[in-house]
Every structure is written in structure tokens, then in C-alpha cells.
């Protein structure tokens, strides 16, 4: 592996971390699309910067881009605060307006100049190692490594300083206000960090990757945990994993690095969506099936409790009487036996002591809806887990 390849992976990982942190809060606040909005709304900043400098490579263009990013955030917040529209609508109102101002400015004044976001701002991860920072004649590494590294340091410092404030204002704005810190200031702070991160990362790795790294890892982590700290750590892990694994996929396929990383981010989300222990599709399906079986079990136990005559308790009778298919009655019988709730003698089913108690408690719970009764049953049965 050449130095360049290693540097690309380090830069991609740093960007992944720098994006995952604000991304987690954005996802929790339902503002995830703000990074995509910023990628469009910075166009007028770039155009005006060009009109001032007449130079496509001037750093003023990027500075004004970041400023337009913050303006985007402020406008979105302002519209949203009116309470007339939701967060996503506010975002959708602001960025097309700003983007089209940029397009009109180009069309009116600079139609024959190669002026677009692609040409000016959006970087390409593959080329990051070739743009080096040279201080006093010494090569100290790729420039974007320093840009992204600085942004990451600031983000991490802010995260540790304002963790509590961020947490409270994300989950309970009212409480935050009553505790004495303004949710608005925290909000603008977070959004400004997101804006600067977005623009800085755009310059290093390009737009789609930044948007994907902000949203996908945080969204995946959200499916696994509700704990903010764990969510941050998981989002960072997913981001870094996708960055490095995606890079090697690009290597094997000789494909676009950003494209491959974004694809892996999508696949990570898909995997989590399918296999997450609580909210994953497979877990949900399994739980639903288990719950159905347990309802049947309860019905069956009730039946046993209510009928003493042998004919009603014959194994074969269950098929006819409760009208179950064979497979299902077998599943239910097995489950009941496994839990020592019934015994079967000569094909006659009878409740055990434990089965009897279980049934009484369950009925009690269904009638009174009091949790205390069934606390000890929650671990074994999905039915009682709410």
C-alpha cells in the first residue's frame, strides 16, 4: 500500500468521525437533510466570491460558501420557528431559493465562465494526497488532512464542553430552557458546526459522501440504541468502518472511492435494518410470530383450566375444538411442555401447578392491566413486553 492510499483512508476516517458527531444530533432533531441543503445553497456564496475576486481558486469563495451555509441554517430555523411548517419543509423552502439565486447570477453575469459548485468547491477524495501542505519547505501531509483534522478537533472539543446542553436541548427543549440555557443558542451552535463541517468536508471529499456520512451512520446507530453516548460511538464506528472498507471495495473494483464508501454506508444501514436486535425487521418478525404463538398458548391454557372432562383435554381434540392447524398445535404444545405448564399422559393434557398459576396471573393482567403481576414473566414471554 502506498502512502497516498494510506492517507486517503486516514482522511476518509477523519471525515467520517467529523460528520458522525453533528450527524447524530441532526438525525435526532429531524434535521438530517440540512447537509444536503447546504451542498446546494452555498452556490450564491461561491458566485459572489468569484465576482469579487475574479479568481476561481481564491479562498474567499470557500469562506463565503461557509457563510451562506450558516445563512441557510438561520433562515431554516426562522421559518421553522413560525410554526407554520415543519423542519423538512423549511429546509426544502430555503435551499432551492438560495441555489436558484446562484444559478440566476451565473446566467446573468458569467455564462461563459466555468463556474459551478463542482469546479470550485467539491473535492475528490482520490486526489486529496496530491494537494500537500508545505511549511518552510517541509511536507507535513495532505492539506485536507489538516483541514478536516482541525474541524474534527473543534467539533470534539465543543461536544465535550456542551455535551449535557446538547443532550437536554435535543430531547427536551422545555427542560433546557428552564435549566437556564437557551435551546436556540445551542441549536445555532450545532447548526453552524454542521455548516462548517459540511463545507470543509466538501472541499476534501465531495458532496454526496459528506451527506451520506452525516446521515447513514447516525441513522443506523439509532436503530440499535436509544442511549446518546452509545449512539455517538456506534455512528462513529459505522462511519469509519464504511470509510475504510469502502476504500478497499473501490480498490478491488477500480471504482470511485466516494461512490464505494457511500454504497457500503447504504449496505451497513440495510444490515442493521434487517438484523438489529430490537428494531430490526427480522427481530420484529420473530417477535410478532412469537407473540402469536403465545396468544395461542394462553388460549390453550385457559381452555384447559375451564374444562375438566377428559374428552376436552385429549390431544387430538385440540385440533378440532380450537380449530388450529396441526403444526400450530404442536408448536403450542411444545412451548407449554418446555415451560412445564402441562403434562401429557395417554394423550390427555393436564395443567401443572405452574401452568395454573401462569394462567391466573395472565388473566389478571389482561383484566386489570397492572404490570406488577407479570414482572417475572417479561423475560420469557414477548407478549408481556408491551
Amino acid at each position, binding site marked *: *500500500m*502506498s502512502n*497516498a*492510499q*494510506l492517507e*486517503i*483512508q486516514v482522511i476518509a*476516517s477523519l471525515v467520517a468521525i467529523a460528520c458522525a458527531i453533528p450527524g447524530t444530533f441532526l438525525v435526532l432533531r429531524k434535521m438530517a437533510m440540512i447537509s444536503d441543503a447546504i451542498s446546494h445553497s452555498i452556490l450564491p456564496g461561491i458566485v459572489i466570491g468569484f465576482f469579487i475576486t*475574479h*479568481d*476561481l*481558486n481564491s479562498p474567499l469563495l470557500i469562506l463565503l460558501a461557509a457563510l451562506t451555509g450558516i445563512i441557510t441554517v438561520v433562515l431554516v430555523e426562522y421559518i421553522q420557528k413560525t410554526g407554520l411548517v415543519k423542519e423538512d419543509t423549511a429546509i426544502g423552502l430555503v435551499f432551492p431559493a438560495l441555489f436558484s439565486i446562484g*444559478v440566476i447570477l*451565473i*446566467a446573468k*453575469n*458569467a*455564462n*461563459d*465562465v*466555468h*463556474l*459551478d*459548485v*463542482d*469546479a470550485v468547491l*467539491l*473535492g*475528490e477524495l*482520490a*486526489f486529496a*494526497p*496530491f*494537494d*500537500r501542505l*508545505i511549511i518552510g519547505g517541509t*511536507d507535513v501531509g495532505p492539506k485536507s488532512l489538516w483541514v478536516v483534522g482541525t474541524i474534527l478537533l473543534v467539533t470534539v472539543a465543543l461536544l465535550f464542553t456542551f455535551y449535557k446542553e446538547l443532550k437536554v436541548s435535543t430531547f427536551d427543549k422545555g427542560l433546557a430552557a428552564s435549566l437556564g440555557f437557551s435551546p436556540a443558542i445551542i441549536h445555532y451552535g450545532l447548526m453552524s458546526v454542521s455548516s462548517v463541517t459540511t463545507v470543509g468536508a466538501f472541499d476534501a471529499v465531495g458532496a454526496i459522501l459528506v451527506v451520506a456520512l452525516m446521515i447513514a451512520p447516525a441513522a443506523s446507530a439509532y436503530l440499535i440504541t436509544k442511549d446518546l453516548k452509545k449512539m455517538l460511538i456506534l455512528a462513529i*464506528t459505522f462511519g*469509519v*468502518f464504511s470509510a*475504510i472498507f469502502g*476504500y*478497499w471495495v*473501490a*480498490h478491488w*473494483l*477500480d*471504482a*470511485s*472511492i466516494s*461512490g*464505494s464508501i457511500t454504497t457500503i454506508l447504504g449496505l451497513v444501514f440495510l444490515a442493521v435494518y434487517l438484523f438489529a436486535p430490537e428494531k430490526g425487521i427480522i427481530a420484529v418478525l420473530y417477535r410478532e410470530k412469537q407473540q402469536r404463538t403465545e396468544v395461542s398458548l394462553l388460549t390453550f391454557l385457559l381452555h384447559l383450566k375451564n374444562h375438566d372432562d377428559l374428552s376436552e383435554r385429549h390431544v387430538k381434540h385440540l385440533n378440532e375444538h380450537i380449530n388450529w392447524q396441526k403444526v400450530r398445535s404442536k408448536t403450542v404444545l411444545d412451548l407449554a411442555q418446555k415451560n412445564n405448564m402441562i403434562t401429557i399422559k395417554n394423550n390427555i393434557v393436564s395443567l401443572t401447578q405452574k401452568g395454573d398459576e401462569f394462567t391466573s396471573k395472565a388473566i389478571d393482567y389482561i383484566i386489570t392491566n397492572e404490570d406488577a403481576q407479570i414482572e417475572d414473566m417479561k423475560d420469557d414471554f414477548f407478549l408481556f413486553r408491551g
Partner: protein
Amino acid sequence: MRKIIFLLSFIATLSCKNEAKTNGKLNVVTTTTMITDLVKNIGGDAINIEGLMGSGVDPHLYKASEGDVTKLVNADVIFYNGLHLEGKLVDVFEKMEGQNKTQVALAETIDKGQLIGSEYFASNYDPHVWFNVDFFKLFARKVTQVLSEKDPENAKTYIQNEEKYFEELDALKKDIQGVVDVLPKEERILITAHDAFNYFGEAYDFKVVGLQGLSTATEAGVQDVQKLATFIIEHNVKAIFVESSVPKRTIEALQQAVKSKDHDVKIGGTLYSDALGDAGTIEGTYVGMYRYNIKTIVSALINE
């Protein structure tokens, strides 16, 4: 910490191959297909050549692949067009100084006075200079000069190849002139999707009208389409043209606009503008591409 160690070992196990070519030849990287073809003609077998862009790729919108990193790391010489044709890539090359590579922006070797400038911003120029064969010959001269400096042992080969290629280009020039002369001056109007053919127009007295500006990001406005439609009818233009690296939607919209004014304009064919045809075909070379373009243009515009 354990995670970091895991990731590092993961990287280490995956880092398998480091394929720097070490057959002693000069490693040359080129950007657009036109430049790749040119450098192939001059360098021949004496160099290793890697073209970054394939056929049909819009150089403004080119996306790098992972393999391009290794190509660039191993490059001794990089030839590119410049004048912002390759977008951000141009910045990348300009910033590569001090990395033991020679980067040459071929279009920037041309005297600025001869370039077509932007109407509004003096320091920006139309980058599609290769459509003037004389400029393309300047490209060739520069390539020969740089290759000979970098690899004096093979300088003779490069100069011989250059001579041979110049003959080909001169023949091409003569052929183009012959075909163009058939078309009366007032019928020399070339309408395409974006402004790629200004140098061609300048060289052969064509009035060139592009629907879109130079930047592929701005879309053509409704007024632009209507104005151009009126222009087509007034000048009785018979055909308009699609470009291989630009979607043909805009040109079809223009055709519809002309139709709605009860006139007919046909689509004269697909021209190669920012990229050559597929490698291995005749249009995959600069000379073949130009012959094809000029034949397509003239045969669509001429009155039979």
C-alpha cells in the same frame, strides 16, 4: 483502542499490491482522450501511458476511480488540457509541485492573445482549443519537447514520431479545408448544445452558436431556446447537432421549439466534442474524430 488496532491490522492485511511499473520507461498520465491519443502518437512504445478519462466522458464532470490514485502516484509526466477544462483536476495538478512530477497544461502553452476569452472576465478562456488543428500541433510540439527532456535516450524516436504525426495532421488540415470549401459561407452555421466549437468556427469561418453556456451546470433558459429557434428560422439553418458527451435533451427541445413555429430542422448527427469515440474505432483517434465531425457537419448542412 482495541478498535483502532483492529482497524489498522485490517488495513495492513488488505494492503496487498503496490504495482509501480518498473520497466524503465517513462510513466506518462494524460487526461482527455484527445491528449491520450496525441501522446500515444508521439511516445509510441517508448513510454507507459495511462489515460484517466474514457470515451464519452465529459471532462468537467469526470469522476476519479481508485486506480487513478496509483496512476498519479507513479506518474513521471502528466499532460493535461488546462484552462479549467478538467475542473478541479486542474487545481490538483497545479498543486502537485515538489512531488517529483512534471505537469504540463498543454492549452496554456498557446499564446493568450490567440485564445478566445470570456466576454466578462478577462482571465478566463475557452478551453476547447484542440478544434484548431494548428493549436493541436502546438500541443504535439510541447509533448515532444517535454518527453525528449525527460527521456533524452529516446529523444530521436519522439522527434521522428512527431514528424510522422505532423504529416498526418497536415493531411487532415487539407482534407478539412477541402470538405469545408464545398459549403457556401452563408450556410456555415453550427448549432450545438454547449460552446465547444468556437475554435473550429474561428478556423473555418463557421458561425458557432451554443445553446448552453460553457459551464455544464447551467441549463439553457426558455428564452435562449426561443431566441435560437427564431435564429434558425431566419437563417434557414437545416441541421443542428448533438454532442457525444452532453445529453441530447436540450437539442431535442430546440428542435421542438422550431417545429412549433412551423419550420423543420433536423438533427444532423452526433459530434464528438469533449471526448473521442471508443478506443479501437476510427473515431477513437483525433484525426478520425475530426474527419467524422467535419463530414457529419457538412453533409447535414449542404443543399443537395
